[in-house]
């Protein structure tokens, strides 16, 4: 896979009163992701090329991918393919990268979602709505021990846009 083809479309930055090691654990340990990531448990082989999954509570796969960069506690990058929602399964994988940097007495966490094709805004809206919720809750878990109860659903028009992109194989163009 040619990582250079992936261009960042969505970036979210949050500062957390924590340590890089704890932020790394929150991103990669299923006991943490279950709390703030829509109930999904991460299941990741901790090395470059390793398998990556986000699983429903019953173990079914919601997301799958491959680890592109595993550099604790600084950088975790993997590909994402949505498997859990039928309409989304045919979409090309995206690339999600977390960067963890010390920032004074706190930690700067940067999430970047990158794509290898010209993704319509109506599809990007999914990540743009979801990441602030997920990462706000992650911050609350690390700072207060308690996640936030946030409703998560695809934004209006997203599923339709995915169906259209899949029908047109929009990523084959240009």
């Amino acid at each position: 896979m040619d990582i250079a083809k992936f261009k960042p479309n969505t970036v979210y930055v949050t500062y957390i009163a924590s340590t890089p090691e704890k932020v790394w654990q929150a991103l990669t340990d299923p006991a943490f992701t279950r709390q703030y990531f829509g109930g999904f448990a991460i299941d990741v082989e901790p090395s470059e090329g390793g398998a990556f999954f986000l699983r429903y509570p019953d173990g079914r796969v919601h997301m799958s991918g491959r680890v592109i960069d595993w550099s604790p506690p600084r950088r975790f990058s993997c590909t994402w393919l949505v498997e859990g929602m039928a309409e989304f399964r045919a979409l090309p994988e995206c690339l999600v990268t977390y960067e963890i940097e010390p920032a004074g007495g706190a930690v700067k966490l940067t999430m970047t979602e990158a794509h290898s094709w010209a993704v319509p805004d109506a599809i990007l809206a999914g990540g743009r709505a979801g990441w602030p919720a997920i990462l706000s809750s992650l911050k609350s878990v690390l700072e207060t021990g308690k996640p936030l109860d946030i409703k998560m659903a695809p934004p209006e028009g997203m599923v339709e846009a995915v169906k259209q992109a899949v029908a047109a194989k929009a990523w084959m163009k240009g």
Partner: protein
Amino acid sequence: MNKPSFVYVTYIRSTPEKVWDAITDIKISGQYWGGGCHRNVSDWKAGSKWEHQRNDESGVADVVGTVIESKRPGRLVITWAAPSEAADPEKTSRVVFEIEPHKDDVVRLTVTHSELEPGSDMLRGISSGWPLVLSSLKSFLETGKVVPK
């Protein structure tokens, strides 16, 4: 002309009133904004001036503007400019704060900073500044402490 915008969304365990007050109250804003080095000052009535002042005796304003719309606790719209550029409409941008009850004890705060000048120091400054300020606001409301500098 198409001018860039910056949007930041955060979810906070709080009430809309507390989020509103944290943004607008001189004492509360002075505790977390820029790690306590700035405060927001106005009577927050539509048409009034507002100032983003240094939180010291000088009270020097580093950002100034006008309150366009003020509906506690849901919606605040202000203009935003460096004091030296405040007379230039091209260099005056606009900030909308939307504060919505989300679910139970969770509030969604959306800050939309628009009409920015492409390539400007202001665009660069606010793009790195809002995540820091709003992360600190969230920590302050949820834990009583700011994000350490």
